[in-house]
């Protein structure tokens, strides 16, 4: 048998049918569903008189639209948002799928809830009508976002029509320096390869620095594989993975656990596997980074200065000009001189317990800069509860942060948490597109530690100065 990558192995284990031209019907083990990209799919099923093929493997949770303020227990005020969440309530009930309603303590961002509940397991295929499904690749699962037509296709058939991507290896060697995190890894990779650098590929992240990451950190890395253009990001499962999964509500137990473990341990890329593209970065070379522009590839170390459009080539010259104008920045300005109005800690990229611990560590005994708006939005109700138990919530509140309920919140501004025109935000989310966090809003992406540091000083800050 020829050598295979991890992606090859998972792919081969899920091919239902392969046509002569290579188009394959791929079996889907887990289908995660949220309220924004699913109503038209369920409507399609109804119109065609179709059922959900595997309701027991379909898991739904509302996250994009839900307000994160405590008054949401009284219902969602925005009518369109409420209708969308109510549609999911109804669809979950009518089609008999697993559901975590808005006021269930297990509710949260779909990509945080899935792993937390043990739905995501190594070697699985996982899809969701959301591009950040890449997150689940941290478990060695082939996980990617799909559109609503494909959501309907998976609901009806538990399969997807796919063509295989190419294999790309991203190796992060050595160890990270103090103050450098999984977020800095994933942003730095995109800074190096560009937002289209992964197009047509599935990325496997490997190397000592990746192995040293917790599951939370690995999820942060894989989460942004999509920002690098890749269909999915993967990390081979190991003891860290198994330890995280064991005992979770939907993880296998007893003899099934042992059987699963035996298979999971075969899930790695063979030494002599073929890679279509290889990127290697030294862990020691990665600095705490921030974004300066309106694309996740606009990444620089915090010690750097705002670039000039003339530093670029081709279409990027005009794009950089447009970005600087939108962001209200001047070439040559020190990144650490950029003053901010708002801090957002949360999202499927950085809304897990470890992220909150890291931010709280910086904020302990400190206050946020006067006049700043700062919020922490835990990724799930269970993350929130744990953070309260560990005393993190008190640290955030004493520092001047708002302590919110779980949801996507200001990552995408489909709910009341939004930026106003010109408002500048230090955000732990994943996209700095024009208008992403609210029309005219200006987003700088960074790690939770860096966002916490910015909250203290009121400007983009090198977290290493505070530790």
């Amino acid at each position, binding site marked *: 048998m020829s050598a295979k990558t991890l992606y090859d192995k998972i792919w081969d284990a899920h091919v239902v049918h392969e046509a002569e031209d290579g188009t394959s019907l791929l079996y889907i083990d887990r289908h995660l569903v949220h309220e924004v990209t699913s109503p038209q799919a369920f409507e399609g099923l109804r119109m065609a008189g179709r059922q959900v093929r595997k309701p027991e493997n379909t898991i739904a949770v509302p996250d994009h639209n839900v307000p994160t303020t405590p008054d949401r227990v009284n219902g969602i005020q925005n009518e369109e948002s409420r209708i969308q969440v109510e549609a999911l309530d109804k669809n979950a009930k009518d089609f008999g799928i697993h559901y975590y309603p808005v006021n269930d303590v297990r509710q949260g961002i779909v990509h945080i809830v899935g792993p937390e509940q043990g739905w995501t397991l190594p*070697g699985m295929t996982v899809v969701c009508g959301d591009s950040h499904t890449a997150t689940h690749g941290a478990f060695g699962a082939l996980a990617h976002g799909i559109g609503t037509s494909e959501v309907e296709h998976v609901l009806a058939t538990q399969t997807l*029509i796919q063509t295989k991507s190419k294999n790309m290896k991203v190796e992060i060697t050595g160890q990270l320096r103090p103050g450098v995190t999984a977020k800095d890894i994933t942003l730095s990779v995109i800074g190096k390869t560009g937002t289209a650098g992964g*197009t047509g590929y599935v990325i496997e992240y490997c190397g000592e620095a990746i192995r040293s990451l917790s599951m939370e950190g690995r999820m942060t890395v894989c989460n942004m594989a999509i920002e690098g253009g890749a269909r999915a990001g993967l990390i081979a499962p190991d003891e860290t993975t198994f330890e995280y999964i064991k005992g979770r509500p939907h993880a296998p137990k007893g003899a099934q656990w042992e059987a699963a473990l035996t298979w999971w341990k075969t899930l790695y890329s063979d030494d002599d596997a073929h890679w279509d593209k290889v990127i290697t970065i030294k862990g020691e070379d990665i600095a705490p980074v921030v974004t300066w522009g309106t694309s996740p590839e606009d990444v620089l170390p915090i010690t750097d200065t705002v670039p000039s459009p003339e530093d670029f080539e081709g279409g990027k010259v005009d794009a950089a000009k447009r970005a600087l104008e939108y962001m209200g920045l001047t070439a040559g300005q020190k990144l650490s001189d950029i003053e901010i109005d708002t801090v957002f800690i949360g999202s499927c990229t950085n809304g897990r317990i470890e992220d909150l611990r890291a931010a709280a560590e910086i904020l302990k005994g400190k206050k946020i800069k006067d006049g700043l708006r700062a919020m922490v939005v835990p990724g799930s109700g269970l993350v929130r509860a744990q953070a309260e138990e560990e005393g993190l919530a008190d640290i955030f509140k004493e520092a001047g942060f708002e302590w919110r309920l779980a949801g996507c919140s200001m990552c995408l501004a489909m709910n009341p948490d939004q930026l106003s025109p010109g408002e500048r935000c230090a955000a732990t989310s994943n996209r700095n597109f024009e208008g992403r966090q609210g029309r005219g809003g200006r987003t700088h992406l960074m790690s939770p530690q860096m966002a916490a540091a910015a909250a203290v000083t009121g400007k983009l800050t090198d977290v290493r100065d505070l530790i």
Partner: protein
Amino acid sequence: MEKFEKLTGIAAPLPLINVDTDMIIPKQFLKTIKRSGLGVNLFDEMRYDDDGNEIPDFVLNKPQYRESEILVAGDNFGCGSSREHAPWAIKDFGIRCVIAPSFADIFFNNCFKNGILPIALPQDQIDVLMKDAEKGSNARMIVDLENQTITTSDGEVFPFEVDQFKKHCLLEGLDDIGLTMEKAPAIDAFEAKAGTERPWV
């Protein structure tokens, strides 16, 4: 699904790279539970000012491009979220074909599910098509899926590549789900086998 065979139409030039799905259809329009009616909000934040008035400089607001059926754009078109609202909005506006040097993966797939043909061509060819599109409404471009060619208003012909299965589905207007349902026995067999090999799933 509406068939795509041959399109003769006005091409709008949008020479921007990294046009993301938030630009194509901002999040406030994702709250719909329908697929239709999004065309009026296509490129909303570039197309309208804060008061909802049209921004005259934006290409689709210019008189000669209001009836565009083709869009010529820069690298990495459709990056960002998986929202199928992006191709729904494009289609609802009346655009059936997007031509760019490269596309983001999910957007690219979503187009085919909605009768939109995305075509990737090398940058030097895009440059020629962009110039042709800049001529406005007197210049019609022809996109012929059957023969896999684009013909400029000057008669210059550019062949393009397309996945043969996707081409077949577009030409025939085929519904993927119906096609897959025909493979139900293979899916049943797979589930039976996987149930033995990986019972924990």
